[in-house]
């Protein structure tokens, strides 16, 4: 009975149908005869998703009393949207930095970036925390596990 469920239902229905009719047939080849097709379980699952999202849409079609619709807020607040954006940006950039610059700058950016995004402005924690974490990680990887970070 909520708008967000209604929208989720529609999105999921589209997702399910796209997979069922386009992506799966395109991506998964047919298997040999005598053996169950490899696309069986994936098809069952997206079929299930499509069906269930249809149920979701129908259930949320009728809304209780007209007035409440306007007052319904999105379940995701603005600060949460900002948080997701920050997380994707900082983690994403540090992944890219890892691919081009190596583990050290990537890890440093990750820690300091997140701290800054959380509002940390004091110099001491901004320096001590990354250093401690990085030394710990270094010990873990090189001494304990004997692997290298590539």
């Amino acid at each position: 009975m909520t708008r967000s469920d209604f929208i989720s239902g529609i999105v999921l229905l589209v997702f399910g149908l796209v997979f069922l009719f386009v992506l799966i047939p395109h991506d998964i080849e047919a298997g040999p005869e005598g053996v169950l097709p490899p696309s069986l379980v994936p098809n069952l699952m997206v079929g299930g998703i499509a069906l269930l999202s249809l149920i979701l849409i129908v259930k949320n079609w009728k809304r209780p009393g007209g007035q409440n619709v306007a007052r319904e807020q999105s379940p995701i607040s603005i600060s949460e949207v900002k948080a997701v954006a920050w997380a994707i940006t900082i983690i994403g950039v540090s992944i890219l930095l890892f691919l081009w610059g190596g583990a050290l700058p990537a890890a440093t950016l990750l820690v300091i970036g997140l701290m800054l995004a959380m509002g940390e402005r004091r110099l001491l924690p901004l320096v001590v925390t990354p250093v401690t974490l990085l030394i710990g990680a270094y010990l873990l990887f090189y001494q304990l596990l004997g692997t290298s970070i590539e």
Partner: protein
Amino acid sequence: MENLIGGFQDILTPVNIAWIALGVTIGYVVGVLPGLGKGTAVAVAIPLTYYISPLAAIALLIGIAKGSTAGSAVSAILLNAPGEPSSAPTALDGYPLARQGKAHKALKMGLFASVIGDFISTLVLIVLAAPLAEYALLIGPVELCAILLFSLTFIGGLSGSSLSKGMIAACFGILCSTVGLEIETAIPRLTFGVLELQDGLPLIPVAIGMLATAEMIVQMGNHKSIDQQTSLLDEGNASREDKIVLWEDWKYCIPAIGRGTAIGTVVGILPGLGASVGSFLSYGATKKASKRPELFGKGAIEGVAAAESADNAVVPASLVPLFAIGIPGSVIAAILIAAFIIHGVTPGPMMFVEQPRLVYGIYAAMICASLLLLCIGYFGLRFFALVTKVPMRMIIPVVLFLCAIGAFLQGDGIFGVMVMLAFGVIGFLAKKLEFSFVTFLIGFVIGPSFELTFRQSIALLNRDITQIIDRPIAIAFIVLTVLTIWRIAVANGKKNQLAQKDSEIPKT
């Protein structure tokens, strides 16, 4: 019986006890850190074991398994960021309790429940391994498929308001588990040309992303209010009642622990289910049996007890098929087989004939590990509980960093971190839009077993569904599944009716 005594004497040397303690401690600490779990710990330890005696080696590995299972309750309770899917239900009630200033109480109950579940399950292993294993063989692929179906439905139904949303999450989980090369024909599925996906989506980064990373993002978006809550907690001095476990709490928890241990033990013995299924079934069972179900999800301590006791009971029980027959029932058991053989022991019934003293030594080691777990966990509690006082702007970067490390280690490098990020966002959406992220994980974890047993069932039933009449256990579970769906649909229908009535009351 002299073997039993001999075995105990072997274990009770300072050196061996030290090894067990080391294993439990390493396991516990790794479990506590969000993002690192059993897999990392055991992988690190295996090579260490080559150079020490067989008894010590096996004791060490088992200690690690037990410790990490118990330790992951800590990050679940304190941060709502469980290190492993099997501790996710612990977070459902543990975290609210921590937010209410009852962190000590929740941590203690988590530990007690873990130790009790682990201890009793170890006793079951010691006394009943052989007969139980024989019974377990009755559970063939068809029965297992039915059990998995039931578990999925039951757990999906736990997800609050909507069975449809829960089942969508489950379907998604299973769908994601099909990514990769298909096991028989090597045909790539849903890899869309991405090479790393040929191995499938790696479990740990997916779990870390959905559980810990997603939670951190949510907390990032709400850090101001969380910090406010925390400072309020400090101002009222935590009462003694909030710090210890009261008799009142025990009254609710003892039946939960009993149920949890039983469920965990049974789930552990059956191959292909896993600890996560055990802890969720236990949580759900206790919720259904509870006289105060509304409290679940808001701080019902018996929820913590149910989840943790089952979670820990799975570990010793999963060794039953290994000891009694020689077949590994879980990843830890499979690794132990190798450790056994390397040290010259063939797991299975012959073990008891050829090396009884060693076997009893291992039993003694497991009991010691349970007791040591209690001591080490209790000791560490007061330190860990301090974490709740740390402000969000410190916690979030540190936890996310640890998550990245865990995802990196267990996900083939930087690819794992990418997967973690992707599922972190998906998990965030799931949490906010109330799609059960835990059902997704369960679907993901048991997806491969489900698909395999499904195909096996089709062959075993000779593609003829009526042959299922010969398999009463399978029929029983299918009936249970249908009943569960029915009950949940009815219950949800009632809930929605009430909600509708509520909203029809004009709000002034």
